[in-house]
């Protein structure tokens, strides 16, 4: 029970006025940063880093950690309300949450997202406190073939059900893959498809692509179809303020699956919350009953619960490789690592031995921060949902303006905004032709990682592609990939031929 005693000591430190204030300020900054498209937790931490120079190292780190956590909470709010993901992991919240908002369930969905985030964050924290060093070693056993197949599992799961049409889903995914290929090859440094623009050497910014397909496409479609005011009325009339008892039947198991999947993925250095949320969503879809499966991509509340839970569980888990091994699991933890080094602390196996109070105080601040964010999120959900009362004719142009500012902030340059415009036109036609955006977004974000891990796998096996079936874990993941692709097709075929799905059963 030594970890528990250390955690209690850490909690006592965090409950001091100064640390509590740092956690509260960090949480608020993080929520706003997470909710603004284009603003990432990494950017918010980097901006606030100079503010912590004059503070006690512990207080400074608590503030930065709170920002990191709160940003993971905030991203889902604009995703659910206006179909604009605040950050990458919130894409699933847009896919599943926005249809619920259109059905008048905005407040209940936001509350589900916040409670799920809290559950994921807290469960993740529990595992971090008790199992950090042991888990870090297990994570290191995960090799490039397994990384590659985890990502393929995420892609194959959104390919079919995500679009309704298999071919359209495939076209969408391949379009995203092309976007992900633009720029410098990650291993060899050869430049691809830049059309002579040096700005494209870094690739097409993922945030610009996501904002274009989700936010610009939806805003322009609503403005051109002339139903902007209609959308406002449907979204604003919130029928339910809390998830129903029936919803909880699906939400609670989604929390368990989402926490486990998110924490497992979050442990892997470099994987991060985005892959975790997509992976958990894939798991949720695979485990959905025949009655619930058709609801995915049309507003399945368990999809939001699972993805948000996994997002925050992964955020907790990503602290494990950072604190235990000194390996940052994401861009955000990389900046946090820099901050720790700046304050003269060296993360690694000895951190928990040499500075247990400090390490556990940082973890305790996560608990305080997430609890604070849960209270804020749940109580302010009705207030936040007032955004839907803004007339659609004003809201949608305003969304485009926010998108422009957010995209400009990616590189402090107007070039990504031109890309946003071009991709927005593609996204508009995709939306009108009912080609789902989720497969494109997922492959675009995963393509560079997929390519690196594929190349590293072949380097390991000296060019033998059999490496993907020769390792037990990769074989299991390969089987799951095939199942994630084939099972929904079989279910769709059976549904079309009227073999299953008795009506009015649920």
């Amino acid at each position, binding site marked *: 029970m030594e970890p528990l005693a250390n955690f209690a000591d850490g909690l006592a430190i965090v409950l001091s006025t100064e640390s509590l204030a740092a956690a509260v300020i960090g949480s608020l900054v993080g929520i*706003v*940063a997470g909710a*603004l498209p284009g*603003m990432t937790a990494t*950017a*918010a931490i980097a*901006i606030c880093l100079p503010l912590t120079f004059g503070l006690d190292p512990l207080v400074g780190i608590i503030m930065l950690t709170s920002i990191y956590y709160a940003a993971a909470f905030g991203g889902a709010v604009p995703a659910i309300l206006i179909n604009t993901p605040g950050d990458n992991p919130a894409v699933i919240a847009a896919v599943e949450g926005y249809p619920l908002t259109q059905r008048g369930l905005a407040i209940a969905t936001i509350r589900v997202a916040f409670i799920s985030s809290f559950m994921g964050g807290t469960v993740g924290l529990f595992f971090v406190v008790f199992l950090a060093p042991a888990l870090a070693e297990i994570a290191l056993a995960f090799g490039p073939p397994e990384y590659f197949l985890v990502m393929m599992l995420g892609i194959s799961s959104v390919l079919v059900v995500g679009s309704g049409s298999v*071919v*359209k889903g*495939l*076209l969408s995914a*391949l*379009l995203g*893959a*092309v976007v992900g*290929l633009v720029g410098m*090859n990650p*291993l*060899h440094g*050869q430049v*691809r*498809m830049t059309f002579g623009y040096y700005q494209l050497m870094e690739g097409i910014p993922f945030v610009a692509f996501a904002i274009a397909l989700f936010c610009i496409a939806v805003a*322009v479609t609503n*403005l*051109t*179809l002339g139903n*902007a005011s209609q959308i406002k009325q449907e979204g604003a009339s919130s029928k339910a303020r809390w998830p129903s008892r029936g919803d909880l039947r699906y939400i609670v198991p989604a929390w368990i699956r989402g926490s486990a999947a998110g924490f497992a993925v979050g442990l892997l250095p470099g994987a991060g919350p985005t892959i975790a949320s997509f992976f958990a969503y894939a798991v949720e879809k695979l485990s959905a009953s025949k009655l619930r499966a058709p609801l995915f991509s049309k507003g399945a509340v368990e999809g939001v619960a699972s993805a948000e839970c996994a997002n925050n569980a992964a955020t907790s888990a990503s602290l494990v490789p950072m604190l235990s091994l000194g390996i940052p699991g994401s861009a955000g933890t990389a900046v946090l690592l820099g901050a720790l080094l700046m304050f003269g602390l060296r993360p690694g196996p000895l951190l928990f031995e040499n500075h247990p109070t400090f390490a556990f105080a940082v973890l305790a601040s996560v608990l305080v921060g997430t609890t604070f964010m849960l209270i804020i999120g749940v109580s302010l959900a009705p207030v936040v949902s007032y955004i839907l009362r803004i007339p659609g*004719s*004003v809201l*949608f*142009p*305003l969304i*485009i*303006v926010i998108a*422009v*500012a*957010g995209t*400009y*902030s990616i590189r*402090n340059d*107007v070039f990504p*905004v*031109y890309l946003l*415009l071009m991709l927005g*036109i593609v996204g*508009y*036609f*995709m939306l*009108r*032709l*009912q*080609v789902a955006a989720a497969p494109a977004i997922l492959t675009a974000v995963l*393509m560079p990682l997929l*390519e690196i891990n*594929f*190349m590293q796998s*072949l*380097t390991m096996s*000296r*060019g033998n592609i059999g490496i993907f079936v020769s390792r037990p874990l990769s074989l299991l993941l390969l089987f799951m990939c095939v199942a994630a692709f084939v099972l929904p097709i079989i279910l769709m075929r059976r549904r079309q031929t009227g073999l299953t799905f008795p009506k009015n059963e649920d």
Partner: protein
Amino acid sequence: MWKANIVFGLFTSFVSAYILLHSYTLSYTIGFNVGPGYMPRWIGIVFLIASIFFILWNLIIRPEEAGDPFRVVELLKAAVIFGSLFGVLVVIERIGFVISMTIFMFIVLFFLEKKPIHYSLAFAVSGSLLVFGLFAVLFEVPLPRLVPRWI
């Protein structure tokens, strides 16, 4: 809808054909490992096959899908929105974020949504200022300004 699907299929065919051709300018293998042209080659092939299949499927089967068909008015409105956004982006570095976005919002509100001039102007100015305040003041994003250090 099937006609619009065919146009989309032609677009993806064009993109995939470009990727495929471009992949031949890159090394397919380096040593015993794959080169930078490996992924573009295979993605291009699969993409082209899927696109051609999609076109043929729509030509032969002509599937009935739900959804609004495209109308000329709608396409014109989309052209105005994207065109005006492009127009203000061209000058955004010169006139600043607030003025360019005010112009964009005003065009959408006044010309497309047919709102009264005072309503359009008020929401365009306040909306642009609000977003500018959030990004440029709160998070110190160096958005383009007409007057340095001010707006």
